């Protein structure tokens, strides 16, 4: 079953330690307080662990917004 924004939200809130975070598919790092390059890595690792997936380095580098993460997440086997 495809993952949605509501599957990612708890991970962002947990890593960024902020329960008020709201995400949409078009959210970018600039829209979310605390989502810097360091925390980005913690978010990636947390998503990989939670959904037992492994992103390619080319995928991670191409992400512009939350929607891009979701798309790759749902394409991973």
């Amino acid at each position, binding site marked *: 079953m495809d993952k949605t924004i509501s599957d990612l939200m708890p991970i962002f809130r947990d890593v960024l330690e902020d329960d008020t975070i709201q995400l949409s598919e078009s959210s970018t790092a600039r829209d979310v307080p605390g989502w810097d*390059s*360091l925390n*980005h*890595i*913690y978010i*990636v*690792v947390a998503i990989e662990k939670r959904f037992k997936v*492994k*992103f*390619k*380095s080319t995928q*991670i*580098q191409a992400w512009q917004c939350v929607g891009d993460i979701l798309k790759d997440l749902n394409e991973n086997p």
Partner: protein
Amino acid sequence: MGHSRVAILGNYAMQFAARSLRKAAKVSGLPVDLYLADYGTADMELLDPGSGLYAFKPDFIVWHESTLALRDQFYANREDDRLGYALSAVGRIRAHLERLERDLPGCKVLYPNHPAGFEDNLFGHYGYKLPTSWHFQLGKTNHLLNELAAEADNLILVNAWPVGRAEPLTDYAMVVNADLHYTLPYLDWMADTWVRIIRCHQGRFVKCVILDLDNTLWGGIIGDDGIEGIQVGSLGVGKAFTRLQKWLKELVGRGILLAVCSKNDEDVAKGAFLRHPEMVLRLEDISVFVANWESKADNIARIRQVLNIGYDAMVFLDDNPAERDIVRRHLPDVIVPELPEDPALYLPHLIGLNLFETAGVSRTDLERTRQYQEEGRRQQLAQSVTNMDEFLASLGMKARITPFQEQDVERISQLTLRSNQFNLRTRRYGVPDIRRILQDPSCETFSVSLKDTFGDYGLISLVVVELTDDGGASIDTWIMSCRVLKRTVEELLMNHVVERLQARGVTRLSGEYIPSGKNRLVEDLLPRLGFQPDGENRYTLLMSDFTPFQTKIMTLGQDDK
């Protein structure tokens, strides 16, 4: 206790290691101040005495050189330089350590060695035969680092290979994306190791293993199966228990105390140690033997009383999850590792936990078990006499009090590192620090060795006093082993301190009690010794006001036996 000042240097994205370290420190209750050097500046920071690193005055430096990054550097060398790669890499580290020893005395450097998994297989196994290969130079680097660790007092070489873990050390997608050379779980594991080492150098380390017997130290239940029926030795599952016992025996040899805490009849339980031909551990290896049918939490409290060490210096091993749970709930500071269900896995599991960090070993470690057995006999005597003076007199105590001597520096350093309770200011000193103090003409030092009719305690107390020019002096350190509490050693020592200071023209001695959370025992030491209050936790004694104490200890001269 104050915050530990820890600097982090390295040649990959070190913010991740810093975050792991902060987390690990918090979990283990170690307050830290961190300094994170800019990315890739380790060599510059270490070379420049005006750098942020030196200004920060760290107690510890974690210096993590990524094996992957070193591999890239290695390839940048020309063929003929590759032959000397390891020598020059370790030579560079040695030079930094010497500079640190001089400019940041007392600061320790935690340097992880190079774990397996970063070979390049350019030549396959032929790499072992080819001194110009990375494979060869990587192995040599580790070997030279090991030799350096044996020489350099300020280097703590950290084993970067996670024994007992199967997960990969590196996520190569993250290397590409974030210059993160190790996985986050690996960095968490590594940071946990760093924190454990730092705590150990602050005197927080394991001193005793408390053992259950049935199905922990041997297979089967001795009360049901009898001595002949328990499994230990060269047959079947007995081999696993034998191997565990051999390892525990090695621990005894290096100064870790073993205690037994078992639900059994004492005679039955001891029978195995006395009469089973294949038992590796013998009664003389056990410092305190408690076998009865009472609660294990109560029995561990009893063991603690005899040994006089903190609960956080004890590991409790028991195959029974219910017993582990009871001890965890009643004595939360005792370290209670899970044990796998399969006895064959007990030992590899325990080795993987790396519970027995130590900052040093000395001859005294090796005698510790015997000393605690003597203590057991003293306590029996104490129960049989009712009058304290009479008891003290019957011990026939003899003390030797001398300035610090070269042959004792290891033991002295160790006392400063190990002692938590009878420790006035909790200053921790490594061997080089002690040598510095020993040679400092403005310091008066005192060490006390004690023996009695039951045995030799060895060197059990020390005092460092710093003299000022104006006829004043202050107590830098006052430490005593808790094994000689209530023996009037501190009174005897005080007599000597005053005598020697007066001979040097000191008229006024000041002292300070620094609470550490563990040294309540010496809260009132200074007033007890005749000092007058002089501010919060501060005290002063005018030498002219001092009346020597009566003690039951005979003082030996330098040459008396």
